[in-house]
């Protein structure tokens, strides 16, 4: 916990340099360079299978990169022991594409799970914190339901509450609006915007959903063939004459 805090002011929360990752013969990431400033929201766009989700899993240490550097709060995460990595993970939240809620635990227990393991709160304090988090995402009435008893949109909300449980300063979103109807997707966007307003979260959002990315992002990066093809504001992307960028943006316009 101390190592990331020391360099917090000096270094951007997330720095990725020449990151490479292959699965067998398939090159998924082919030298990614990325920086996300404190409080900034970056959306990473691209076709399916271009390694967007892999990028997030590398940043949080769920997979190991073949080469390159990932620094979180200035701390290189490659080669860290599990305990050190866990200290860095406590500063990050991760919303999984399919929410990945623990299906044998209730909504309340899902959000309480990381808090129980992190310790430091009494039972009453923890219960209060869980209810606050669930109220933030509008799920305070479904405490005792199991994940299988709530809709996909509700599962995303609970997943977001769980990701926020340890008060992270970095949030990683893997397809937060995938598989949701437009209205529920807008509600999730509104929720992300609300988080950004209320806290100073640094976020990376991996998505196919261009309208959502436009709504919630400060900056966008478009990936192709394991590389960042272009990054900037939505206007910068619109100004691009690259055929792939034009094709990608026109799909949703």
């Amino acid at each position: 916990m101390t190592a990331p805090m020391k360099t917090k002011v000096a270094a951007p929360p997330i720095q990725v340099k020449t990151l490479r990752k292959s699965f067998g013969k398939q090159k998924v990431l082919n030298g990614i360079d990325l920086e996300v400033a404190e409080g900034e929201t970056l959306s990473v766009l691209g076709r399916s299978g271009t390694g967007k989700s892999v990028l997030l899993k590398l940043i949080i240490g769920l997979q190991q990169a073949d080469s390159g550097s990932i620094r979180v709060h200035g701390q290189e995460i490659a080669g860290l022991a599990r305990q050190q990595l866990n200290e860095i993970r406590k500063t990050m939240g991760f919303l999984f594409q399919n929410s990945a809620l623990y299906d044998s635990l209730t909504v309340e227990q899902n959000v309480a799970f990381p808090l129980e393991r992190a310790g430091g709160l009494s039972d009453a304090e923890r219960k209060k914190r869980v209810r606050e988090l669930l109220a933030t995402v509008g799920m305070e009435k479904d405490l005792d339901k199991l994940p299988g008893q709530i809709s996909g949109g509700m599962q995303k909300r609970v997943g977001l509450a769980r990701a926020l449980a340890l008060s992270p300063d970095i949030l990683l979103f893997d397809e937060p609006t995938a598989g949701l109807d437009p209205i529920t997707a807008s509600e999730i966007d509104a929720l992300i915007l609300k988080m950004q307003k209320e806290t100073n979260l640094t976020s990376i959002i991996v998505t196919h959903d261009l309208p959502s990315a436009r709504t919630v992002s400060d900056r966008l990066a478009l990936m192709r063939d394991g590389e960042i093809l272009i990054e900037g504001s939505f206007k910068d992307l619109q100004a691009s004459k690259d055929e792939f960028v034009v094709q990608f943006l026109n799909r949703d316009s």
Partner: protein
Amino acid sequence: MASSTAADLRSARETNPPASTVFLIRFFEWFGELGFFCSHLLRAVFLPPYEFREFAHQLDELGSKSLPLVALAGAATGVVLSLETHDSLVSFGAKSLLPELLVLSIAKESGPIITGLIVSGRVAAGIGAELGAMKVTEQIDAMEASAVDPYKYLAATRILACVLMLPLLTLAADFCGILFGWVTTTLTEPISLQLFIENGFKQVTFNDFLPPTFKTAVFGLIIGLVASFQGMRAHGGTEGVERAATSAVVISSLFIILADVLLVRLIQVVFP
């Protein structure tokens, strides 16, 4: 280092398609991965924080809930042993040895191995399927992302529960086996329970009873370890979960039988 070795092995497998080579690579790869799993596990077991609540939950889930099945299997073993040996002993004029034979065969071998295989069928399948499903639905990744060690929370608690519960379940199987062995015997030739027990335990020593009972802790270790390992390396959706559950049962049952051979010999040497 570890991941590069695994990557090399995978790459070698892709470039060398003969079935025998693939089998050998997979065989050694499996043991290599099991070695890394065990090293993670050892650190998880000894380093705090400790998951006492989940451990207690697993004691109930894996141990208490296996009790009816194990008791039934033990009882059936006692009945069958009594029926099978009765006629043979009568033909040799050694009918009075029936209680002793029954007690010795149940305490030394039938009870422990039946318990090991029954629990392997019930518990290994359960752990393999549960952890396999958690793996393919990214619940284990979610746990890691929340800075919770799944080796500690999921694997260590289940393995320790298996190690602790197997000897206790074996005692239950032994008890039911001997009790129903007496019931079966007394139905054909009435004998009081007191006399049956006295005759049965007359020649039974510490070495006949405790080492075979405690060897089932090794069976528990095999069940918990193999099932957790197979579950946590599952991949490929529903089919992957099915593979994890099936392989957990098959591999742990096979290893229990092999371990039994070694342990029986070891007990004979250490406790002559």
